[in-house]
């Protein structure tokens, strides 16, 4: 069982995502943005960071990396893909997920321990959580405010595709407190907060993030 983690120029949480995959029991595989080969991985994580320095727009340039062509194609065939923070931005820029992420409404970078509610535990990445499971994981971003038009938001809500929602104070101005969404098939998930930083109590506020990685192991075995 292999989880691939893509490194773009400017990726920052790639080593953390690999560690989290390993803690969950997977073999973590480093994937390079310039290499279109996925090296036989069973799932892919697009990690956080500032790929290409967020030039143009966050995620806008990474979307054109050779590795993304393969990922977009395989995602259409059901490959589990999790985009975290900058990875979520890349998924939106790639049109694997609807909407966009814009600058936090308070204009500042924010790093905090953020309570969330898992609202869809049927995706490839969330099946290990209970329905409406409340978790606290790390949030850290500059461009974390999820936006989409009303029709899209209504459709996401109607189809149960809001994966996670912020609890307590909305930290970045995201519409309808949305922290994460999924595609229709449930194999592609974009999440603004960072579950990979919550897999061991020594270095993270909780271990609440581990479920994303254990979920995908089960999803891959089940398929």
């Amino acid at each position, binding site marked *: 069982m292999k989880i691939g983690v893509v490194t773009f*120029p*400017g990726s*920052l*949480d790639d*080593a*953390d995502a690999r*560690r989290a995959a390993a803690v969950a029991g997977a073999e973590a595989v480093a994937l390079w943005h310039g290499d279109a080969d996925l090296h036989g991985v069973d799932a892919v994580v697009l990690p*956080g*960071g*500032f790929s*290409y*320095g*967020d*030039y143009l727009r966050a995620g806008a340039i990474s979307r054109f990396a050779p590795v993304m062509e393969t990922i977009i194609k395989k995602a259409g065939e059901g490959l589990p893909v999790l985009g975290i923070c900058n990875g979520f931005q890349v998924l939106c820029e790639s049109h694997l997920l609807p909407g966009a992420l814009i600058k936090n409404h308070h204009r*500042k*970078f*924010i*790093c*905090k321990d953020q309570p969330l509610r898992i609202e869809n535990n049927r995706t490839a990445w969330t099946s290990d959580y209970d329905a409406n499971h409340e978790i606290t994981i*790390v949030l*850290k971003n*500059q461009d974390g405010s999820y936006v989409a038009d009303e029709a899209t938001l209504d459709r996401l809500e109607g189809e149960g595709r809001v994966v996670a929602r912020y609890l307590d104070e909305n930290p970045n101005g995201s519409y309808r407190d949305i922290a994460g969404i999924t595609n229709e098939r449930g194999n592609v998930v974009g999440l603004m907060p*960072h579950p*990979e*930083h919550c897999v061991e109590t*020594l*270095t*993270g506020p909780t271990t609440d993030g581990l479920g994303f990685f254990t979920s995908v192991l089960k999803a891959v075995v089940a398929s």
Partner: protein
Amino acid sequence: MSPQSHADTVSNANSTPDVEQPWAELGLKPDEYQRIRDILGRRPTSCELAMYSVMWSEHCSYKSSKVHLKRFGEIPQETPAGKMLAGIGENAGVIDIGEGYAVTFKVESHNHPSYVEPYQGAATGVGGIVRDIIAMGARPVAVMDPLRFGPLDAPDTKRVLPGIVSGVGGYGNSLGLPNIGGEVVFDPTYLGNPLVNALCIGVMRHEDLHLANATGVGNQMILYGAKTGGDGIGGVSVLASETFAEGGPTKRPAVQVGDPFMEKLLIECTLELFAANVVEGIQDLGGGGLSCATSELASAGDGGMRVSLDKVPLRDASLSPEEILMSESQERMMACVTPENVEAFLKICAKWDVQADVIGEVTDTGRLEIDWHGERVVDVLPETVAHEGPVYHRPYARPDWQDALQADGAEKLPRASSGAELRDTLLRLVASPNLCDKSWVTDQYDRYVLGNSVLSQPEDSGMIRVDETSGLGVAVSTDCNGRFAKLDPYTGAKLALAESYRNVATTGARPAAVTDCLNFGSPEDAGVMWQFTEAIRGLVDGCIELGIPVTGGNVSFYNQTGETPILPTPVIGVLGVIDDVTRRTPIGFTAEMEGHQLYLLGETEEELSGSEWANVIHGHLGGRPPAVDLEAEKQLADILINASRDGLIDAAHDVSDGGVAQTLVESALRGGVGARVWAPDGLDPFLFLFAESAGRAVVAVPRTEEVRFTDMCTARRFPHAKIGVITGDTLDVQDQFEIPLTELRTAWTATLPSVLN
């Protein structure tokens, strides 16, 4: 007309000895210019003048501080953790921490640029110190930023603080480096002189250590990273060495502009170059740009160096050779590479989309020769540029106001006595700018990235896991109380060292080495120079007593407005080593600690001068700072480290600014559980709460370990007194007052947002 036709060549300099040169505008004094002429036996070319002026500036040459900094060599160069592998003079000091690992760390100032252009000044301060660390061969693993500002409510503070914080965060976050500590301090003397000190910690295997030199005739000099532009030209000589004159021309163009994305590529690229073993010597380009890198690399090597300046890739094609030599464009490095490794070197750079160009080679002439389109524009002995700058023995004298200041102690000021008055005093103190919650600042920094942050602000020190298997880690704290240093710079420097040392030990790590950032006013002021020499003396004596060496650091002079210098601010960073980070001691009182006994370690004296109480309640600064007893600090550190290792304590927090009251408030709010406390026998409740005697910490001891813990203190004859128990949701000072944690939290957290949002 092309720019090269203007070049002032060496032969031109020989034939036109009487040309007027702008040495004064470049910051050189008349005797310094004459010395350059004497060294060369002719007038310098304009390129040589540019190089000397940059390298002989205060910032690069340490000309006012050099004679005093030599004293750091008196400290034994061994650390309690292991050998020093590189010391002062290298890009950063390196110490052996065991298991084959070495750690490098250093703090530097970027004060003046951050006043002119807060965001870019602070951002490039982070960028510069990070490049110092990668130049040693280490992977940067964390940063910390001690920051100091004018009064919180001053209009200029509202200009510089958000920009500086955003710049520190914007750059460090984009590099993927956790920011795990630092300070935020306010004092009127920093108005117009904000202090932006940036510290970086790096980790490497012993065999990866690289030093900055260019050796081996025929080896190629490769410049890689960002292209060279017009930013930061003369930043060093223009900005760092003089105070800002009223009504002078704007100096904004002299501040560099940072690109953290390029720096992130530079980090990964450089580490891959080291791993591929294709680098002989390396240096980052910081203050002094190419002037500094070429002259320092060449003088540290065994031969000479020839450089073709026209091969430097430019962002702005109109730059003159003088400007190229002086440019402080960020995110550049220079490496010495053997001819057979050049191709592999360039290939790795291409992988990371990093531009790299061979611009010169090592020669056997012993000279630094620089050409511009085939014409020689520089021909010097590199050491005359890099190391043989002027050395000043600046006059220093104890200021005549020092006696009166020390006579005016705060111990005579009116104090709160009733419970209600004590309660009111505590609430005012916790809400004051220096003691309040700093998360408005620190929440703009990523403290989690890399996944090895075991402790980060507001813990006593930041702690990073170095090895995931063994749990080996390092802890770093930075501290300085400038008010204490103003009252007595010798004792103040020792107190800063003691506090930083104590903060590291409080988390369970054994202090091993020191870096310092010595921020002072003008060295041309004899009083300031006395403060500086006293602080060095204190630091040297203190390090000898504690048995830890200074591995590197930085001096920043000219931090003053008109005749008013900043508080003498020797910021001290102490690095400690912990064998197993799972044994770290946090500060917070958590639910699992309900019922734990609280002990105050160390003696509390009637020491209020320079305290936050005197500052906040009376706006007073006078008297003598608290006494410092480094032997007692060592004993306290031993107790804290052993107690951590043996599981005798579950929380510990040092006592410093604001006294025991502040310590208890921070621990209670951090963990969310309160405490019932009392003053130990014979100690006045006011002094118990607010005195700032050094050498103290509050620890939380499980009832099951109480006997073992107190036996250990007794055996060491170290003062310890039970002062309470962790319980409830209030801070209850028995027979005096009780404050709900919700009320404390509101008071503590409201201050910065209310002014800065």
